[in-house]
């Protein structure tokens, strides 16, 4: 029981007691030591369910969408990536900042490989910080993409084809992604015909690439899509390729920061890179 966990519980107890928030979204333990589950604490006696350890990896921001139209604040425990997810949802006009009370948690102990390339271990926005800010580490976010680019075209195609042929279309990557917050996803509009329901490599490819393109310029690089994929498809390798190109062509760019910058594909400058002449 580290001290941040106790401090977190006390903070939540106080917030619930003085009705600052209606309920707080955090993590709770499960039967397995290396798994935690998102918890929704509304009773101050329940705060002992909250935990904070290196297994608190699932992203919480999107759960606030379930009750986005009810009044009263919702408390969310936010690590660096969760806070960027909240910025993402605010930027996409899905959540209002004043409906949220963000409990910041500097996060430095996770052992997921996405966390090695994390550039914002401290929450980018919060109402209250629990624990001391940690040292930010520089990381080459696009190292893996570079390795991929070094391969030949046919090698890259067969790499992606074998990955997409595994996809069982459970849509976990879409449902967990904070950038994927459309009210009616194109993949569910079977009648319109964008996306067939059958699972074969071609349909999986169009799903994979379309989702990459839909979130590419708004992806906050939290790596949840890769964590939740039951078939272990390296989804981040696609979106990070787009972010790498964006950084090269349109200047340094990171999504989900409170600077309120519009998504790259939603704006333009007259002097953009252009080789279509």
């Amino acid at each position, binding site marked *: 029981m580290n001290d941040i966990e106790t401090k977190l519980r006390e903070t939540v107890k106080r917030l619930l007691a003085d009705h600052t928030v209606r309920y707080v979204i955090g993590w709770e333990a499960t039967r397995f030591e290396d798994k935690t589950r998102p918890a929704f604490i509304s009773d101050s006696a329940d705060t002992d369910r909250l935990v904070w350890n290196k297994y608190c990896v699932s992203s919480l921001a999107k759960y606030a969408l379930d009750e986005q139209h009810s009044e009263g604040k919702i408390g969310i425990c936010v690590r660096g990536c969760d806070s960027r997810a909240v910025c993402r949802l605010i930027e996409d006009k899905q959540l209002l900042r004043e409906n949220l009370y963000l409990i910041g948690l500097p996060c430095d102990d996770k052992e997921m490989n996405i966390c090695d390339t994390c550039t914002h271990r401290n929450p980018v926005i919060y109402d209250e910080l629990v624990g001391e800010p940690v040292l930010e580490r520089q990381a080459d976010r696009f190292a893996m993409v570079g390795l991929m680019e070094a391969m030949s075209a046919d090698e890259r195609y067969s790499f992606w084809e074998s990955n997409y042929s595994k996809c069982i279309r459970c849509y976990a990557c879409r449902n967990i992604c904070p950038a994927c917050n459309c009210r009616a996803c194109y993949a569910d509009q079977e009648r319109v015909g964008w996306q067939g329901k059958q699972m074969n490599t071609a349909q999986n490819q169009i799903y994979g690439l379309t989702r990459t*393109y839909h979130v*590419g310029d708004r992806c906050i690089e939290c790596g949840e899509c890769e964590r939740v994929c039951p078939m272990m498809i390296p989804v981040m390798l696609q979106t990070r390729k787009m972010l790498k190109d964006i950084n090269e062509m349109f200047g340094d760019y990171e999504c989900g920061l409170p600077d309120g910058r519009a998504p790259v594909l939603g704006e333009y400058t007259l002097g953009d890179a*252009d080789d279509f*002449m």
Partner: protein
Amino acid sequence: MSVNIKEGWEPKILAFCCNWCTYTGADLAGLNRMKYPENVRVARVPCSSRVNPQFVIRAFQKGCDGVLVCGCHPGDCHYVTGNYFTRRRFMLMKKLLEYNGIDPNRFQARWISGSEAAKFRDTVTRVSEQIKELGPNVKFREGRWS
């Protein structure tokens, strides 16, 4: 994946032409009896930014060997900012397709204004030759039911 090209094979190229500039440019080429390869199928779109990246992937899946997106020069867009978004969107799309194994020449974009009939003909001819050289596209193909 070396592909042996049967002689007499004609590539299928889909060209999205923006209604206000490129389409009229192509019309002008026709008026001036300019000769350009007939394996290009022109799809008229209100603006080059109407072209959705899914159209491009679906085109390859449905059997195209090359896709060309043409629009007005930046600044001439009938909808003022349409082609600025096109520019960003397809600069990224080109790289993403290349990253996924599609040869860069198979997906190209060009600014062709209403008066540049010659440029339309040259572009289409060059793209057609490049793709003929590359041979039929076997990637992203929509397989038939086994």
